C-alpha cells in the first residue's frame, strides 16, 4: 500500500523541536506553557513526524481532490483506549489505539488515511514510557500507511486516570461500489472469521498477573485494512464486516442476527481457537466466544463468493487461519445458535455486563 503524502498547510520552515529534561510528566506539562510545548514536541511531533503536524496549526488540512481520488464517501470514526496494563504481550496501548481505529474504518470498506491522537496522561508517568508508546503509534501508523496529523495533550492529577488514556479519531475514504452494512445479511450467507479467536482477551487477563498462569499468549492486535482490501477484491459482494473487539464474536453475531433479522447457525468445532486459549477458558470458566480480539473480523459473504473469500483471506498473513464458522438462516430471526462439539445445540446470547470468572 502506498503511503499517503500529506500536503502541508503552509510552506513555512519546520520549527526547532523542544526537549524535556525531567524523567516524569508533571502537571506543568499540561499547563499550556513552555513545558507542555516541549512535551508535545519532544514526544509526539518527533515521533509522528509529518509536515501537517509539524506546522502546529490547530487543525490538519486536507486537499479535497486528494481525498476524492480514493473514493466517493468519507468515513470517520473515533475510539478511546483505556487498558490495564498499558504494555502487554503482543502490543501496547499505542499500537492498540492506532490499529483499533484503522480497523473501525476498514470494516466499513474505507481506506484509512489520517488519524488524530489525543492523550490524557496521569501525573507521574515516566517520559520514557510515553516516548515508547508514541514511537509504537508512529511505527504502527507508518506500517499501515496512515498519518497522525493532529492531536491533544492533557495531564490529570495522580489517580484521576490510569497512567495513560488515548483517543484516536480516523478519517478514511470508501471506494465507489462498496456497500457494507449490518442489516444487509441474507439467509444462506456464509459467516467467516480470519483466524484464532480470543487471543487478545486471554492475553490481557493473563498479563494482569492475577492468575499466576504461565502461558505464551499474545494479543492479536493488528491493522486489518490490508486483509480487508484483499477480501473485498476477491468477494466484492461481501455484505458485512466487523472487528470482533469487546464482547467477542458472540456479540457481533447477535448484532447481525438482530439487524438483518436472520438466524445465525455456527458450529463449535469449526470455530478456530488456540489450545492455550481453550485451556485458559476452561480454568476460569470463561466462554471464548465472548473474549475480546483486536485483529479479528467477522464477515458475511454471499454463498457463491465464499470459497473465493476464504482462499483470499488464507493467502494473507493476517488470515492464514481463516475459517467458515457457520451461515445465516431464515429460521429463528434474531437468534444465534451454536451446534456444540458434543452434538448438542445452545443459544449464544448477548453478554450481560462483563464476563466474570466462576467460583468453581
Amino acid at each position, binding site marked *: 500500500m502506498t503511503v499517503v503524502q500529506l500536503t502541508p498547510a503552509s510552506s513555512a520552515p519546520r520549527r526547532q523541536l523542544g526537549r524535556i529534561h525531567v524523567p516524569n510528566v508533571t502537571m506543568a506539562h499540561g499547563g499550556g506553557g513552555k513545558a507542555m510545548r516541549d512535551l508535545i514536541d519532544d514526544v509526539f511531533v518527533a515521533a509522528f513526524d509529518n509536515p501537517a503536524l509539524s506546522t502546529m496549526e490547530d487543525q490538519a488540512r486536507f486537499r479535497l481532490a486528494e481525498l476524492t481520488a480514493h473514493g466517493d464517501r468519507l468515513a470517520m470514526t473515533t475510539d478511546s483506549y483505556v487498558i490495564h496494563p498499558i504494555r502487554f504481550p503482543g502490543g501496547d496501548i499505542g499500537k492498540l489505539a492506532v490499529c483499533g481505529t484503522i480497523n473501525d474504518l476498514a470494516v466499513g470498506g474505507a481506506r484509512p488515511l489520517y488519524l488524530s491522537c489525543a492523550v490524557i496522561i496521569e501525573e507521574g508517568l515516566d517520559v520514557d514510557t510515553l516516548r515508547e508508546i508514541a514511537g509504537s503509534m508512529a511505527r504502527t501508523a507508518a506500517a499501515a500507511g496512515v498519518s497522525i496529523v493532529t492531536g491533544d495533550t492533557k495531564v490529570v492529577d495522580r489517580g484521576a486516570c490510569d497512567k495513560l488514556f488515548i483517543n484516536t479519531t480516523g478519517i478514511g475514504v470508501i471506494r465507489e461500489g462498496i456497500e457494507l452494512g449490518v442489516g444487509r445479511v441474507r439467509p444462506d450467507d456464509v459467516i467467516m472469521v480470519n483466524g484464532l479467536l480470543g487471543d487478545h482477551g486471554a492475553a490481557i487477563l493473563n498479563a494482569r498477573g492475577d492468575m499466576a498462569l504461565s502461558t505464551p499468549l499474545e494479543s492479536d492486535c493488528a491493522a486489518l485494512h490490508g486483509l480487508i482490501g484483499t477480501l473485498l477484491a476477491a468477494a466484492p459482494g461481501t455484505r458485512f464486516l466487523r472487528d470482533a473487539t469487546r464482547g467477542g464474536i458472540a456479540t457481533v453475531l447477535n448484532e447481525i442476527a438482530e439487524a438483518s433479522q436472520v438466524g445465525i447457525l455456527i458450529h463449535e468445532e469449526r470455530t478456530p481457537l488456540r489450545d492455550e486459549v481453550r485451556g485458559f477458558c476452561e480454568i476460569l*470458566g470463561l466462554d471464548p466466544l465472548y473474549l475480546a480480539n483486536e485483529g479479528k473480523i467477522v464477515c458475511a459473504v454471499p454463498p457463491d463468493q465464499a470459497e473465493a473469500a476464504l482462499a483470499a483471506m488464507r493467502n494473507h498473513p493476517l488470515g492464514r487461519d481463516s475459517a467458515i464458522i457457520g451461515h445465516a438462516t431464515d429460521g429463528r430471526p434474531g437468534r444465534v445458535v451454536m451446534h456444540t462439539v458434543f*452434538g448438542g*445445540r*445452545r*443459544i449464544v446470547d448477548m453478554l*450481560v*455486563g462483563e464476563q466474570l*470468572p*466462576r467460583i*468453581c
Partner: protein
Amino acid sequence: MRYVDEFRDPEKARNLLKEITGLSARLQSGKARPLQIMEVCGGHTHAIFRYGIETMLPDEIELVHGPGCPVCVLPMGRVDDCVTLTEIPGLIFTTFGDAMRVPGSKKSLLQARSEGADVRMVYSPLDSLRIAQENPDREVVFFALGFETTMPSTAMTVLRAEAEGITNFSLFCNHITIIPTVKAILDSPELELDGFLGPGHVSMVIGNAPYDFIAGQYRKPIVVAGFEPLDILHALWMVLKQLDEGRSEVENQYARVVPKDGNPVALDAIGKVFELREFFEWRGLGSIDHSGVRMRRPYEKYDAETKFAIRSTRIADPKSCQCGEVLKGVIKPWECKVFGTACTPETPLGALMVSSEGACAAYYQFGDVEKIHARRAEVKAVEPMMARTRS
C-alpha cells in the same frame, strides 16, 4: 487438547445416548411423568447448558437443576452484610467474580464499587491475603463462600495468615455444606426425584461415603459425576442402569479425580478452622440446620462477623420469586411467574438468575427460548387443573 477432547467425543456420546434412550423408554413406559434426575452441582448445570446436553436427551428424561450454585443460594441479607462491610472506611473487600452481581436488598457489590467502595475481584483467598500484606494499614475482608470445594483453600489461607502473623485480614464466612441440603430436598414432600448426579468437586474433598444415606435411607441412586459432557452422559446412564436393575447405590463415575474417602489434607484443614453453625439461611430454601459453617474460637480473630460486629438481618425473598421451587425441582425455571419478564440476567430478582451456574440464567442464556415459550403456553393452559390437583 489432551484429557479434555477425549471427554467430548460425539461418537461416544451417540453410543451412550442410544443406551440412555433405550433404558429411559423402558423405565418410563406407562408412567405419567418423565424420569427426574437432579444434578446437585451448579458446575453440572453450567456444563449441561454449555454443551446443549438437554437438547440431546429423550423426552423421557427431565433434568432437575438443584441447589448447587453457591452464589445463587446466598441469602439477600448476607449480601447486605457485605455491602455494610464495604462501607467501613479504609476497608478493602475482596470477592470471587460471580458474587459481584448478586442482588442485595438495596444494591450488589458491583453497585457498591461503582459508588466508591473498594471492592476487588480475586481468584483465590490467597490473593486476598497478599492484598492484606501489601496494605498493612488497611483491613482486608475476603468474602468466603462456596461448598466443600472452596472451603479447604479458605481454611488454608486462615492457617497461613496465622502462621505469618497477619492481623489485618479476615473472612466473611458464608461457606455451606452439601449434605444437609440434599437431605432437606429429599425430605421435601413435593419432590418426585428418581436419582441424583453427585457433585464432582465437592466429592473430591469429602469422598463418596457421606452420600450413603441417599442410597440407603431414601433408596435413590446417586452417581458422582465429572464435568465434561461425556462424564455427565455416562453418569446419567449409570443412574438409569441402577434404576433398571432395581438398585440404589452410591457409584463413582469421576474416579479419576474423586477418592472414595476424600482428601485427608483438605478435610484436616476444614476441621481445624471451621465448625458447623446451628442453622444457616439459604435463598429460596429457608433455614437449613447445620448447613453452614463458622470459624472455630481459636480463629475468631479472622472472623469478620465478630471483628466488625456484623448483625445479620433476615431479608425475605421477593414474593414473586419462585427460586425455592425451582431449586427443589418442583417447577422448571420457565414456569416461574417472573422468568424472562421482571427477572432477567440484567435485572435479576431471584438469585438463580445471577450466576451462569444458576438454573434460570442458564436457561435464559443458553436455553432454547422458543421451546421455553411454547412450554410456558402449555403450562398456562394446564395451570387451573394443576392448582386443583395440588390443593
